[in-house]
């Protein structure tokens, strides 16, 4: 069943998807930092307020994924920021996250060598988002 984009239900389904992935588990071995996704508001796309996804990831496991204010996500060790429609493109496989970062469509803050070392893990995490059926507010 589809869940509302960037809702608590979405966070829970995303966390389960990450924890089901054996690829993520092995690629993220040794990862011990929090990751925040800032989803910027786009009122014309029925996404009126920015949201923050806080991911507590540790050694190949998603310990917790929560959705709250953008300011929570901005406090994480790594922060990736993009408007709502860009995240939608990532989650619907229209935009590859690695390419998006190189093009500046997704803005990354955090220690670059660390995130580059875990490219495979972040690619698999993106794959996990594509496996969660989502109800998009601008498609109602």
């Amino acid at each position, binding site marked *: 069943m589809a869940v509302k984009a960037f809702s608590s239900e979405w966070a829970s389904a995303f966390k389960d998807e990450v924890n089901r992935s054996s690829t993520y588990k092995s690629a993220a071995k040794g990862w011990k930092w929090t990751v925040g996704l800032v989803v910027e508001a786009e009122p014309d796309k029925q996404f009126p307020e920015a949201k923050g996804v806080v991911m507590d990831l540790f050694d190949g496991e998603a310990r917790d994924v929560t959705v709250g204010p953008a300011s929570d996500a901005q406090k994480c060790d790594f922060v990736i920021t993009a408007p709502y429609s860009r995240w939608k493109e990532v989650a619907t496989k229209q935009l590859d996250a690695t390419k998006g970062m190189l093009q*500046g469509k997704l803005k990354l803050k955090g220690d670059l060598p660390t995130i580059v070392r875990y490219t495979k893990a972040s690619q698999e995490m993106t794959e996990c988002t594509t496996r969660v059926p989502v109800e998009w507010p601008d498609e109602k």
Partner: protein
Amino acid sequence: MARRKVKAEPQQPVLVDYADGEPSAFASMLGGLIQANVEGRPEKQKDFEALVARVGIWVNDINEGVTLDFKSGKLTVHNGLKPHRTITIRADAETVMSLSNLKVGLLGMPIYYDEVGREVAGKLLRGKLQIDGLLPNILTLNAVTRIFSVQ
């Protein structure tokens, strides 16, 4: 009139600068990556200080590139490919990221027999990774790989 002596603060040398007023996201990312690598890993400083080369990197699937101008301890990053390059690497975004994940082994040689190395070598053989100027500049390529590698 007595003047107070102003003691100059020791300034950190600028390792990486950008030729363009608005560096592209790719230029900022590569420049930032190399700066963090060199500052954080003393073993990379020696290579960085010795390297003089103009290295182009072109990412086929985003149609963007940069030129890394290494000049003995200083790097200038240019948006796009500039002339007079020593070597030019052309690959897709994923392969470019794989290059920075190559491990460095004995005698500073990149390792091509582990999973990442085999993937990179395979792409080179299949033409999905092209390196112009490879043969006469193999030592330069190895030095760039060592500076670029996050492993």
